[in-house]
């Protein structure tokens, strides 16, 4: 059958100011979607608008600012029900019969609760603290805290006693310290480029926090960052062996992901290059399929079995985390996860990013992280088991303001993925799944990967961590608090603006002014 004529039209218009254009062809070389071309005979540049995804790579790199990429102003007949996106998705499906894929997080206008929460600040009484002059503690310890700590004097019972040091006699659980409550989310090599993973690990090491390998294995060369790396065990078990588990600081079992709760992942065969195949330990060119469930987990008891298998494999020296998507009844599920023996519970919300997900799943499944976090924290506290696990949340954190509100709602730390990508060039064009990322972030085509210089990218990431950490300190100081630990779950520092009563109840916060 001959290719079908598409009934869609360009989403973006490429405008070139010919007075400014110097025919340098940077746009031609930079575009990975085959939009720009140069005709030497005519000495003219042409653009195929239909191919443009709006990633802005050409506009940013045009030395004379001759390019403007605009959203196509062409409208279908105005219709409050059928938006242009709906029309285009239906047309694409009529032309292919396939599931519509997308990348990055949910872009639909669900309520963003961070924008309806405001923070407190000290005035007159309990004065604010100036973080420029006084120490502010952002260090966070992740892992299971013991029920109680029992001390005895060193040498007790041997006739000594007074003056000898006091030491804990209980075996402490393994904890991992991070210098700021920010970590880089799980993003797998294969889904992201080699240089992106390198930059994330390098920045995590430089700042004393963690980067997560995702489920795609861990290249040998990056084991040098092992003090700052979390490894993931997902249903595909790619690259998982004793060395992988034992090299990491902690191990995360991935059950679910906010962008695609309830479904697995397919890394298409064309993205499984020689290097990716080596790291994942599967043949080159074969699909890397992560089934939706782990086939050894059908219950909380089974999850407990995998948690303890991993603890046994790492000799109880590393915390084990379990990551789930925020869904209905998330608090009951989280309680089960803690009781199954997890040391860290990770919850990924409705707006969490992805390299590839069916759009219908990304845009319709799961609940906002704010509500999930607040409910899980309250439930674990009520059951008296909050100390048994740290709570890490993920899913579309855009600023340090979102992060500090999450901590006040009960989070120990926050995973950032999308923000990290934006820091190194991403413009959220949502085309990660094509493998063509012009910014070299999610592509594994060698000529594109090298666009992302790991040194420069690591510097940008480190700067982002530093900037957000400074802002968190400023806000903490303003509240008269000198340690992030003192804010955790401290909802009295939050008030709601413009929310319904049920929403404030779910979040556990009062309305502003009360």
């Amino acid at each position: 059958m001959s290719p079908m004529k598409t009934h869609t039209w360009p989403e973006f218009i490429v405008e070139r100011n010919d007075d400014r254009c110097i025919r340098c062809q940077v746009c031609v070389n930079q575009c990975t979607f085959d939009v720009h071309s140069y005709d030497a005979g005519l000495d003219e540049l042409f653009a195929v608008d239909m191919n443009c995804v709006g990633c802005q790579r050409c506009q940013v790199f045009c030395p004379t600012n001759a390019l403007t990429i605009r959203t196509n102003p062409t409208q279908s007949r105005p219709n409050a029900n059928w938006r242009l996106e709906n029309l285009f998705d239906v047309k694409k499906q009529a032309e292919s019969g396939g599931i519509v894929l997308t990348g990055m997080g949910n872009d639909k206008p669900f309520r963003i609760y961070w924008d309806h929460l405001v923070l407190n600040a000290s005035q007159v009484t309990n004065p604010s603290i100036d973080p420029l002059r006084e120490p502010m503690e952002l260090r966070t310890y992740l892992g299971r805290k013991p029920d109680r700590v029992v001390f005895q004097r060193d040498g007790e019972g041997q006739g000594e006693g007074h003056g000898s040091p006091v030491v804990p006699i209980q075996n402490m659980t393994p904890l991992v310290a991070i210098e700021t409550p920010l970590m880089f989310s799980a993003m797998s090599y294969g889904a992201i480029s080699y240089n992106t993973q390198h930059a994330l690990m390098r920045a995590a090491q430089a700042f004393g926090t963690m980067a997560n390998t995702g489920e795609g294995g861990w290249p040998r060369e990056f084991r040098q960052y092992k003090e700052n790396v979390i490894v993931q065990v997902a249903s595909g078990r790619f690259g998982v062996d004793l060395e992988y588990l034992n090299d990491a600081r902690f191990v995360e079992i991935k059950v679910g992901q906010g962008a695609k709760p309830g479904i697995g992942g397919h890394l298409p065969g064309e993205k499984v290059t020689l290097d990716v195949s080596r790291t994942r330990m599967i043949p080159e060119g074969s699909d890397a399929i992560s089934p939706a469930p782990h086939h050894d987990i059908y219950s909380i008891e089974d999850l407990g079995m995998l948690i303890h298998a991993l603890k046994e494999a790492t000799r109880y020296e590393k915390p084990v985390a379990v990551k789930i998507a925020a869904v209905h009844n998330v608090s009951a599920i989280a309680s089960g996860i803690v009781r199954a023996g997890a040391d860290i519970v990770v919850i990924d919300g409705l707006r969490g990013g992805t390299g590839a997900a069916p759009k219908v799943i990304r845009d319709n499944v799961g609940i906002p992280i704010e509500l999930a976090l607040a409910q899980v924290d309250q439930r674990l506290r009520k059951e008296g088991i909050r100390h048994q696990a740290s709570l890490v949340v993920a899913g579309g954190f855009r600023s340090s303001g979102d992060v500090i509100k999450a901590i006040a709602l009960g989070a120990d730390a926050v995973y950032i993925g999308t923000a990290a990508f934006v820091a190194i060039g991403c413009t959220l064009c949502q085309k990660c799944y094509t493998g063509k990322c012009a910014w070299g972030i999610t592509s594994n085509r060698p000529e594109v990967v090298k666009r992302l210089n790991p040194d420069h990218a690591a510097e940008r990431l480190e700067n982002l961590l530093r900037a957000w950490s400074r802002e968190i300190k400023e806000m903490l100081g303003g509240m008269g608090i000198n340690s992030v630990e003192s804010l955790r779950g401290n909802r009295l520092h939050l008030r709601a603006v413009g929310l319904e009563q049920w929403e404030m109840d779910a979040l556990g916060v009062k309305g502003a002014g009360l």
Partner: protein
Amino acid sequence: MAPWSYATPGAYAMAGPTNPVRMEQGRGIVDASGIYYRQLNEQLRQLVKHGIREIEIINCYGQRYLGTSIPGDYQLKVYGTPGNDLGFAMDGPTIEVFGNAQDGLGNTMNDGEIIVHGHAGDALAMSMRGGKLWVRDSVGYRCGIHMKEYGDKVPQVVIGGTCQDFFGEYMSGGTVILLGLGLAEGEKYKADFIGTGMHGGRIFVRGHVDPAQVGKEVGLTEPEPEEQEQIGAAVRRYAELFGGDAAEILKRPFVKLYPKSLRPYGRLYAY
């Protein structure tokens, strides 16, 4: 006080009761009765660390994860019934079980060999990447699920009896040989959805397989001559381990199940 929890009582208690190890002609003999798996594995680790290469566990009563965190080249004989996830992420040793194995045998196993003189449960060889499994009798559901191979690491599983549904599901590498001993000539395996989602590896089944019993991603054919040799070698080793007449077993022909595509879901999406 919090209600029931896996985590609070035993999991972090380091010191628990253990039974003394008995040494007999260089072999370490551990009596597992009344011991938690964590202590048992710690005892094994200490023995291996001290250079003991032959270890026997007697009175094994469901202790999990045996051989998990102790890589190396040693022989472990287990008398009794080991628990789930025997050989999880195992890397090197040879384990021989005189009894039945439970679920998750050889889960995510990397290297080594496990021989079971009895039956094994569900999800055997899940995500197994290397090494060999030998099961004298039958196995449960979803065995061989998502097995892998990479380079010269090709896992091999040989099962003497029969299997349940979803055998070799999502298989992406490795070799599985199912002998069906005990089935009459032409008698069907009571298993459906064999090889559903298969996109790599190979399954050899002795006797009859109906096309309706296999996943839609699976093709049926005759094994190639060199594959016949591989099957022959495996059957001879099986007979060596568990008894039986290899030549007699090999008289009944084998069917090869193979993935029709390395990319079963390539056309699933719209770009």
